[in-house]
């Protein structure tokens, strides 16, 4: 820090730098917003998918699972579970919880009815179709 460099100058660099990057970020987000519909097949975002997302949220699934790699790391990734297991397996699995196997991780039973199970599977099917740069590296997630 040389003698000529004052704290006012440092403050101005802070304001200028921050403003510049805030604006740049806003521009990139604006551009991303335009591209998201295509990358996420927004046309297929049916009411069933929306209802399924609501089930996903109100059962706090993210508290154990990851979805597109985000969430807790206690239970398997579900962004690609539709491809890994298929719709029937998913529904049967949810219905049969908890397994009660001693010492094993347990998933609660959420008492979902058939309609709710279908909606949830629809949400997972739609999520599976998002263009997310080919993540995860393999089917195991």
């Amino acid at each position, binding site marked *: 820090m040389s003698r000529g460099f004052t*704290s006012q100058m440092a403050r101005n660099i*802070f304001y200028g730098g921050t403003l510049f990057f805030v604006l740049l970020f806003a521009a990139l*987000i604006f551009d991303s917003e335009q591209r998201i519909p295509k990358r996420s097949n927004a046309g297929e*975002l049916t009411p069933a998918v929306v209802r399924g997302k609501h089930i996903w*949220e109100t059962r706090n699934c993210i508290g154990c699972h990851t979805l597109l790699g985000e969430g807790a790391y206690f239970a*398997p990734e579900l962004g690609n579970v539709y491809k890994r297991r298929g719709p029937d397996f998913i529904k049967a699995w949810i219905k049969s919880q908890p397994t009660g196997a001693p010492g094993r991780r347990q998933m609660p039973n959420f008492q979902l009815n058939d309609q709710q199970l279908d909606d949830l599977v629809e949400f997972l099917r739609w999520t599976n179709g998002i263009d997310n740069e080919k993540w995860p590296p393999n089917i195991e*997630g």
Partner: protein
Amino acid sequence: MKPTTLKYQSQAVSKLYFIGALALFVGQIVFGITLGLQYLIGDLMFPAIPFNIARMVHTNLLIVWLLMGFMGSAYFLVPEEAETELYSPLLAKILFWVFLAAGALTILGYLLVPYATLAEMTGNNLLATMGREFLEQPLPTKLGIVVVALAFLFNISMTVLKGRKTAITLVLLMGLWGLAVMFLFSFVNPSNLVRDKMYWWFVVHLWVEGTWELILGALLAFVLIKTTGVDREVIDKWLYLIVTMALVTGILGTGHHFFFIGMPGYWLWVGSVFSAFEPIPFFMMTLFAFNMVQRRKREHPNQAALLWAVGCAVMGFLGAGVWGFLHTLSPVNYYTHGSQITAAHGHLAFYGAYVLVVIAMISYAMPILRGREANPRRAQSVEMWSFWIMTIGMGVMVLALTGAGILQVWLQRMPTEGAMGFMATQDQLRFFYWLRMVGGVMFLLGLLTYLSSFFVGPGRAEDEVPAGALPRAA
């Protein structure tokens, strides 16, 4: 308490916040240990406290106690920096109890009511905001946070407006206002998951890798000014340059969360390049802390506070900087995304940067709030022990989780064919999960040691230094 020893009497409200914060901290760690055990004994506490509930309590308590610590720090720091009494100490006290009650009710709600019922009871069908990681709070809690934050900011801003304006209060205020503004995105929950996740990061990333770094910088600068007596002009320059680098790298660094959630491919480049520079502000903080200690103009009797402050700079650099850089480049993150590597980074970064800065503030302020310049040497020695026990405990945990993460990536992510499934991989990680428990228990012991230091009196032939007995740096 002898309020006469405080520079400004209204600073006394921060004591309430510090005690509340530390109590919630203990709760956070107890639930953390439960979670660590559930990784090993899968059905532990099931179905009374399933993993997702315990995790919600663990992470929400962390956020609430850190916010409480930030608020307490602001109530202590701002009157002293602004050289005037707090605008309304009464408002500060009321807000504490409102915040604590809202927090406690929320945690009880998580523990006692099924989450779906809680959502229904609290109006989640009107405006769905729940069930997203870290933002699980029911709608009334989220609204309560906004009200408390606004009233708090009003109180603090009015104090600054009527008093002296320093670089520290300016940066602190910008950090706190930014924190409150970004939280408003927690009410944005588009039905398109990609957009949902994008706005979710506006809260999560732009808190911990944006606005919170301003708060961190300001608190660290305050503790360093007070304990080293270095000129303000020097410290101000450092502070501005650090927060400049934090935002210049951190804002576009948000892109490192946009790699694999459906955002356009250019974020792979933007996120990788800018987040690769995110360690720089943390490295500068380390240089800053050591530099100020070297140029110190006084031997402050509270050496424990200085240890926490320097520890914060170093551990923040390791946790947020080094452990963040490890997996921030998109070709690496492609394999590590959502693995135990992320957990390792999250733990060390939060501890190094935010837990330690709040404790540094508490360690500096609490003796003064209790009517003495510094704690007795015996108590400080217990405090310093607790720093090392906690830090080494955290180190063991983070190395264990890093080991678990590397093995997990190797078994589950790297093979293109015949990769091991998630649960089969988890079985292979048990050694590391046990090791993590060793670190976790050690951390809890360190924390209890820290709390015990509050009750250690002076040794024989040791006189207490009353507050104000030494010339305090302006």
